[in-house]
């Protein structure tokens, strides 16, 4: 809904959207969610994931472990049902939704999914994307594993949202990114933000980004290092440490692999399911007859990193990492992409 698939919206100036900014307090946020919930299923962060709003909500300070990916790309999506004679019934439904409180890393993930799934016409993704209002928030605190400053920072300067909230003191400065966002603000009669508020917002963004312990690496340095890094001893180390569990795939905002499988009851009725899959899992590269094209753990470890920092850059000109640090948070072996990037950029035979 906020923008055309895969294309970033030009902002009038860095940090500002094409519509004038507004100023909300916390009670206005509750009114906004209430308004949205009359027409839409509203998802808000609660605990460690996004859940359907049940009346209570407090905007958190940081991202949650399980991002909003599942709202657009269902973990287990029925694509059609069939009866015992094999007659098929389409399961594509269009549901009006809103997601509130996602972060810049989450939004970046969605913009990447627009390429992976949207551009190739994944029907369930496109339906969710077109029918979901996106309201994001600037993180107020960084997690230990955060390094989003490598990929654009805590505020989405390239747009892609309907509304974006930045907490400044007692208020939230709201960047309006779409007609729908403007309509919501007008409906709630939210006042415009002043120059001081916008200055406070920029200061807040700078402060949070300043607290992130990462010195961004030049893009071409990463690309060159990846191109020449296939034999780096780093991969031996990672192969030893990685447990090939696929948790990093599950929490990653840009991991989009899936399996297609049938679930059948004893009566012969069933459903065809599109379900998340993970390139780290042993059977991922297996074909009928048992041959496995990525049976080696090393090949799988390497593939996922190349599919974040090299292959998407070749295909789309961007990295498929948003610096959210969730893979580190989820990893039982404490594998840190920042460490991988640093070591690969150091190159050679350390």
């Amino acid at each position, binding site marked *: 809904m906020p923008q055309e698939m895969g294309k970033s919206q030009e902002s009038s100036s860095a940090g500002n959207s094409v519509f004038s900014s507004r100023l909300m307090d916390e009670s206005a946020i509750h009114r906004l969610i209430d308004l949205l919930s009359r027409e839409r299923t509203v998802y808000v962060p609660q605990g460690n994931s996004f859940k359907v709003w049940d009346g209570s909500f407090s905007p958190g300070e940081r991202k949650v472990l399980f991002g909003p990916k599942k709202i657009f790309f269902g973990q287990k999506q029925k694509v059609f049902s069939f009866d015992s004679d094999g007659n*098929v019934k389409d399961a594509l439904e269009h549901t009006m939704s809103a997601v509130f409180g996602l972060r810049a890393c989450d939004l970046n993930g969605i913009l990447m999914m627009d390429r*992976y799934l949207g551009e190739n016409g994944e029907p369930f993704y496109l339906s969710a994307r077109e029918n979901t209002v996106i309201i994001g928030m600037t993180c107020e605190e960084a997690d230990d594993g955060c390094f989003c400053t490598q990929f654009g920072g805590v505020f989405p300067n390239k747009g892609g949202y309907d509304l974006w909230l930045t907490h400044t003191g007692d208020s939230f400065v709201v960047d309006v990114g779409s007609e729908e966002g403007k309509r919501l603000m007008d409906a709630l009669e939210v006042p415009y933000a002043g120059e001081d508020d916008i200055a406070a917002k920029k200061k807040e963004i700078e402060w949070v980004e300043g607290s992130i312990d990462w010195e961004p690496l030049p893009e071409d340095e990463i690309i060159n290092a990846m191109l020449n890094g*296939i034999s780096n001893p780093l991969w031996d180390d990672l192969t030893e440490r990685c447990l090939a569990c696929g948790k990093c795939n599950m929490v990653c905002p840009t991991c989009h692999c899936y399996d297609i499988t049938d679930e059948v009851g004893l009566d012969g009725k069933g459903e065809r399911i599109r379900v998340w899959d993970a390139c780290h899992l042993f059977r991922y590269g297996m074909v*009928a007859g048992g041959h496995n*094209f990525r049976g080696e753990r090393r090949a799988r470890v390497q593939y996922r990193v190349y599919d974040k920092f090299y292959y998407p850059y070749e295909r789309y000109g961007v990295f498929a990492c948003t610096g959210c640090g969730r893979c580190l948070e989820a990893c039982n072996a404490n594998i840190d992409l920042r460490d991988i990037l640093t070591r690969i950029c150091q190159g050679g035979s350390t």
Partner: protein
Amino acid sequence: MNNTYIPEEIRVERIIRETDDTWTFFFDRPVNNEAGQFLEVSIPGYGEAPISINSHSSERLRLCIRAVGNLTRAMHRKKVGDTIGIRGPFGNGWPLESSKGKNLLIVTGGIGLAPLRPAIKEIVMNRKDYGDVVLLYGARNPELILHKEELSEWRKYMKVLVTVDYCEKYTPDICPAWKGDVGVVTGLFDKCGMDTEGVALVCGPPIMMKFAAKELLSRGFEPGNVHMSLERHMKCGMGMCGHCQVGGHYACMDGPVFSIEELLSWPERPEETEGIQ
């Protein structure tokens, strides 16, 4: 917005047993396909599997299917008159257009002949557009040779050499039924009089493609002129599910046919190119 996961129905008209586990299914209508493309074949309850198209676009659809997985085994329980589902065709196909006027070497092994049949048909139908054509085909033993009648037919249009890998009871001195070559398909390279300036089309099990590729390059073929069809488990066929990705490329969409030159330019080398410099 269309739900692109929903297959179209198509009816089985005829079934030929090529071997014990490999049958060719004939359907009631053509699909508009390029030689080398594939379909996702669907049987509700058993899922889907990517299957190479065995027919030329001028023919009604044929699929040559070996029963090795869930879907293909379920397929072998289908009878004439039954319907199955198909999505596609997907993929790029063999570079037949750009090979016009050149000498062609086709190297196949086992069921790898199936995705090359439409290319061979295309060449046969437009024989004057191509130079010398050589078809090399290796099967594990004489009983597993596919498309036997057509192989004889094609001899009118091209040089066809068939070999069987190994099977003692079939060696000519023990079993007079097999008078042909015994040994792997690359063993035919010395016999066929190939033109290393020409174009090679290769399809077979990964191990066969690996040795064929290496051997063709060492004999002087340009990497850009050797084309291989990569076998992967394409689950969606539309460049999304990720299963067929190799070296950042989707075999379902960018392939399945790639030149060795392309394959060698990827940081992750496909298994089929192992051992090349």
